[in-house]
């Protein structure tokens, strides 16, 4: 319940144990906590279960965790992409388990974990191979599948700004999974572009209240955002 301000990403991810389930935010590059993922790689943690929309592409970030066989299972909606060669190789070699989850079920299951929902019925997936073996029920004449929460030991999230209490705001579609993952992990570690004094964020606009945040680390952006929208405040 006390916020830690980490000096660098390596300090931020310190203590992540082998065998942990890690929720990693981002949709493609937008909102991906790249520096936290790199730090996780350097930390040496292994036998990880990764929960993320994608399973990495190219030769950096999540793809390197996959290449180094630090991940034993991926829970995601869209592992295959044009440059997912490390995922493809590990999966085809039988060295990486995959739980493929429809994107909306992934989001709702993560939310359910954060919101204390034991399980929920959804029409998504009903009658498809992704519902095989799952409990089903007809509700109002429509087939539904019973889905359970997805909890993390750790969430790695990227936000735009934090205040010194750990309240967060995001930028544009980089918001994506961050706000729900922050609620669903025992420990939420957040990479931000900047940290502002308490009171600098408008209380009406805070997306992730500080109660969900355990560790914050400031990392300068490597990429360029258009100058008219890079603003400090909201």
């Amino acid at each position: 319940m006390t916020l830690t301000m980490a000096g660098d990403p390596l300090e931020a991810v310190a203590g992540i144990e082998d065998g942990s389930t890690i929720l990693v935010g981002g949709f493609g590059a937008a909102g991906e906590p790249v520096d936290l993922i790199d730090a996780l790689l350097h930390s040496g943690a292994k036998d990880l279960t990764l929960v993320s929309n994608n399973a990495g592409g190219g030769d950096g970030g999540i793809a390197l965790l996959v290449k180094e066989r630090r991940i034993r299972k991926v829970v995601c909606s869209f592992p295959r992409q044009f440059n997912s060669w490390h995922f493809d190789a590990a999966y085809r070699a039988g060295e990486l388990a995959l739980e493929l989850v429809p994107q909306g079920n992934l989001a709702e299951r993560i939310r359910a974990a954060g919101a204390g929902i034991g399980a929920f019925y959804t029409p998504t997936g009903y009658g498809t191979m992704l519902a095989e073996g799952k409990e089903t029920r007809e509700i109002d004449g429509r087939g539904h599948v019973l889905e359970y929460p997805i909890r993390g030991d750790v969430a790695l999230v990227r936000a735009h700004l934090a205040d010194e209490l750990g309240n967060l705001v995001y930028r544009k579609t980089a918001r994506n999974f961050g706000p729900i993952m922050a609620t669903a992990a025992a420990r939420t570690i957040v990479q931000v572009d900047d940290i502002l004094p308490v009171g600098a964020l408008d209380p009406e606009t805070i997306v992730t209240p500080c109660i969900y945040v355990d560790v914050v680390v400031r990392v300068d952006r490597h990429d360029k955002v258009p100058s008219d929208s890079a603003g400090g405040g909201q």
Partner: protein
Amino acid sequence: MTSTGRLDRDGMARLVAADIPRGAFVNLGIGLPTTVANHLSPEGGVTLHTENGMLGMGPEAHGDEVDPDLTNAGKVPVTELPGASYFHHADSFAMMRGGHLDICVLGAYQVSGAGDLANWHTGKPGDIPAVGGAMDLALGAKQTFVMMNLLARDGSPKLVPECTYPLTALGCVSRVYTDLAVFLVEPGRVVVRDVFGTTFTELESLVDLPLVDGT
């Protein structure tokens, strides 16, 4: 409507765009459906949703407009229109799954006469599956339109009595826009609304389904 020639991809996109009513909230799937946006005029008041968390999406971004934090569901940089809003993934999929979008437009491997959709997985051994938001979109919108060529590369029809590819969702498709015809999938029947460079009789011989002539 009948026409002298088979529609090309642009022609199909133009036709779908013309059928989207004024003021509709629409999600355009990755690939061919994305091109429908090129034929929506600002005056039409159609609002685009992208499942990665935005309503009021603008055209693709170029040059200095490119913002790494602003992409569409295909991870392509896009722009923001006045009146846009952002939300997280659970809220975005709640919008889709709760039946709030008027129309979504998807590509397909196969559509059955009952409106079943197969568009996410070939089912071939060795193929790595990826589903994304396809299952949520197909079921969530008030109407699901499909855009596809009527025939696969091997000449077999993609409008089928029953899908042989793994299913995306049951009974979700209400219209199928193809290069040769537009099909309305109605309870218990499939109506041919328009033909392009073909005839209703020729379609009947191409497709292994009873069709109703609505041209």
